[in-house]
């Protein structure tokens, strides 16, 4: 394919943009975008969210990398997203390659293409984007003239399914590793060596996983026998990267000129979670807990409001109530920004009346709709299994407080399909919803509403449930039927997830390297935008599995042996496998494990990151402080 200069892309855009929906998705030029002269830097990085602009623009991970890379004098970062199908057909009919929004350079011209993989249903879009960029989708078919293709994000903690397409994965947090990748790339480029040399150089960066430097062997029954490095530079395991302390938050967010769903300022107040819910992937992979100081958060809000003109701020974390200075923060936000009529959202609050006080404080800024609580399970037994224990009475008490404070809608999030769950446990979900609605009726009469969002549990890699099977299609359907029958009528609303969507995610999230062939085949059969109901076709995936001679049930329904070599066992999240095993056994015996801020359970974070911990102030992490493992030499000689 001939290289399209930016002028040609711009001129073709002029011709086609009035023929597509929301043309503002494809133009760039928004407030706060950064455009550097192309030739003023050595290294050009395209940051790619593999879904449409509307969903990708708010992504905080890419926003951080955009900021990090563009701070360098020797590199630039630009953005690209998946074109919606109408735009894709225009582009394909003209042979126009996918380009970056800032300078309209085709992606082929970049040095590095960096994808974020926040969830598995985006996988086929990655292939489609590589193809739209005019690149071979398979890494082994690309050469030195092609850009380096890297990926990161939460789904990349199991990199195997996407390993045929990605040259290298960055495991864990991106703030520091991205610079090391750019440095290594620059050094390699000047040396004009082979692509294999680049892979080896990248593998030496802590946290980088280069799949082609590892060999996977299988048992005849299809399970993994061994994952072994092919070269000595490839580490085993690849340990995730973390930053010792969260850097000050980004505040110059790109402000879209078209209306998109999430128009808000995202400020991460804390990273990591100490609660230890056994189903929670994010809670395991983002350890340790690191908090931002209150003043830093306030300053960031101030700066971001000024830079964007947004009216909404999201204070992000996995468990807002656990932020040490949450009361202080909320009070300061309310008093400092009280005159600006902004909406402040505080997700993931604990189910306790203190949360209602916090929300009341924030609500005074601007009234907001419902109040969300996530009990996740409703029976005593299930709460012990998943290690999210909230007494029944505490939930009702919190609900009473919410209704009494003027909210009329409570959203309750649950999951069905937890390990060992029976229909009685599902019945308990309905009973709880009814009990909450009864409380609401007593307090605010007929206006009281309960919205139940019931998703289906999918076992995730690197969690205590990584060995269990997902519910079968029939089990899920039976449970959903029960819910639909029990939660109808006035005051209730029920959302659930199509079991086919659940199974698709289940195959991919614990897939091995061979699943890559299924992804490739599904894409060739037309799969893309699998996260969109109107595009997702279950039968296409079944066909792809058949053609690749793999059994989907092997990945979803099979209970793994505790000693099995899991396909992601060469990737370490710094939480020990033995700890996960212990937690799995605890779940079977219904044993609860408390928040580890009270007592460290030695999950593995501290020994792995001992050096980093020793250098950070005691209060910066929620893990206890450590002394350096190895005594300093001089002292020994004394």
């Amino acid at each position, binding site marked *: 394919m001939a290289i399209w200069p930016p002028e040609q892309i711009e001129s073709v855009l002029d011709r086609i943009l009035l*023929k597509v929906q929301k043309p503002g998705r494809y*133009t760039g030029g928004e407030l706060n975008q950064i455009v550097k002269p192309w030739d003023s830097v050595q290294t050009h990085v395209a940051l790619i969210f593999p879904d449409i602009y509307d969903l990708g623009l708010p992504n905080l991970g890419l926003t951080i990398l955009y900021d990090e890379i563009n701070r360098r004098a020797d590199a630039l970062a630009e953005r690209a997203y998946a074109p919606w199908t109408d735009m894709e057909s225009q582009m394909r009919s003209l042979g126009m390659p996918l380009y970056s929004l800032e300078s309209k350079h085709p992606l082929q011209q970049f040095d590095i293409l960096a994808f974020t993989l926040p969830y598995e249903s985006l996988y086929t879009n990655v292939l489609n984007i590589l193809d739209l960029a005019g690149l071979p989708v398979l890494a082994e078919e690309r050469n030195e003239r092609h850009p380096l293709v890297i990926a990161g994000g939460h789904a990349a903690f199991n990199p195997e399914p996407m390993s045929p397409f990605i040259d290298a994965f960055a495991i864990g947090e991106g703030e520091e590793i991205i610079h090391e990748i750019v440095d290594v790339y620059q050094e390699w480029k000047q040396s004009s060596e082979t692509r294999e040399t680049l892979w080896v150089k990248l593998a030496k960066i802590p946290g980088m996983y280069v799949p082609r430097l590892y060999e996977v062997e299988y048992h005849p029954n299809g399970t993994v026998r061994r994952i072994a490095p092919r070269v000595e530079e490839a580490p085993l395991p690849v340990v995730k990267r973390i930053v010792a302390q969260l850097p000050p938050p980004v505040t110059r967010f790109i402000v879209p000129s078209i209306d998109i769903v999430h128009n808000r300022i995202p400020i991460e107040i804390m990273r990591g979670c100490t609660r230890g819910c056994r189903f929670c992937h994010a809670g395991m992979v983002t350890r340790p807990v690191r908090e931002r100081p209150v003043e830093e958060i306030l300053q960031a809000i101030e700066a971001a409001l000024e830079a964007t003109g947004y009216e909404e701020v999201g204070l992000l974390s996995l468990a807002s109530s656990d932020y040490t200075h949450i009361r202080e923060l909320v009070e300061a936000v309310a008093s400092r920004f009280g005159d600006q009529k902004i909406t402040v959202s505080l997700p993931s609050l604990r189910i306790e009346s203190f949360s209602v006080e916090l929300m009341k404080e924030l609500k005074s800024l*601007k009234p907001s709709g419902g109040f969300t609580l996530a009990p996740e399970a409703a029976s005593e037994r299930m709460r012990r299994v998943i290690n999210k224990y909230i007494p029944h009475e505490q939930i009702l008490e919190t609900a009473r407080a919410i209704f009494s404070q003027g909210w009329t809608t409570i959203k309750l999030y649950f999951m069905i399909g937890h390990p060992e769950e029976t229909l009685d446990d599902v019945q308990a979900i309905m009973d709880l919803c009814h009990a909450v609605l009864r409380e609401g009726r007593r307090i605010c009469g007929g206006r009281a509403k309960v919205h139940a969002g019931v998703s289906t549990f999918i076992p995730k890699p690197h969690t205590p449930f990584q060995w269990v099977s997902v519910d079968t299609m029939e089990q899920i359907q039976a449970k959903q039927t029960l819910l639909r029958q029990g939660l109808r009528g006035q005051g209730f609303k029920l959302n659930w997830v199509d079991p086919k969507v659940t199974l698709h995610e289940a195959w991919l999230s614990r897939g091995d390297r061979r699943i890559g062939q299924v992804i490739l085949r599904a894409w060739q059969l037309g799969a893309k935008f699998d996260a969109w109901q109107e595009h997702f076709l279950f039968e296409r995936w079944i066909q792809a599995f058949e053609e690749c001679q793999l059994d989907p049930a092997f990945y979803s329904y099979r209970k793994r042996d505790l000693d099995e070599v899991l396909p992601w066992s060469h990737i370490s999240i710094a939480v020990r496998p033995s700890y996960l095993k212990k937690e799995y056994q605890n779940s079977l015996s219904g044993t609860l494990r408390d928040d580890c801020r009270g007592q460290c359970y030695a999950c593995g974070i501290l020994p792995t990151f001992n050096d980093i911990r020793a250098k950070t102030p005691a209060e910066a992490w929620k893990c206890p402080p450590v002394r350096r493992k190895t005594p300093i030499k001089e002292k020994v000689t004394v």
Partner: protein
Amino acid sequence: MPTGAQEDPHQREGNSMSELTRYRLWYARGAELRYVSHLDMMLVWERTFRRARLPLAFSQGFNPRPRFHLASALPLGFTSLCEVADVWLIETLPPDEVQERLQRAAPPGLTLQQVEIVPLHLPALQTMVLAAEYHIEFREDAPSDVADRIAGLLEQREIIRVRREKTYDLRPLIETLTLTTSSEGDKPILLMRLSAKESATARPEEVLLALGIDPTTTRMERTRLIFQEPIPAP
């Protein structure tokens, strides 16, 4: 003029007219904003005012909207040299300062040309617009017989067209339609003046389609708005 200084600066409950100051803005919309729809542009303006910390007044009612009234909505795909809008603020500031603060907060492609305070009692801008002028460039080669097509079109007594399932006569809405060449003298350029009254507005794309020209092969710019009474020009 009352300033409403005691008011909550971003209050959403709606403001009564007497406390407000009415500003008239003249501005240009460049290529960066060409694919921003009229509705999205409202959001762009609202955020620009918030960044500039200029307190917009809001309409009363269940869903208060900023009091920001355009003379004439700009269709998707157009740039413009001559947009006019009225906006009500709950604070009285010198127009120069308003202009300067807006410009600093404006997104790429939005250029403030002038800001004036105008009396509250003036009629709504959109009732004052008579006509709009457009400048149409061909991005590729223009049809060789474009001059003949124009003459043919103008000869017709009526030009019946269907838009949004409604039939209407385009002919009386075309005030002028001429062909000229670019300043470099090498490219044909269409100039048109079309009625833009509240009840009778013609869209330039419709004229192009009536001429058998695909609007996506052109670059369209609004160059002038013509008002009933002369309003102070930038």
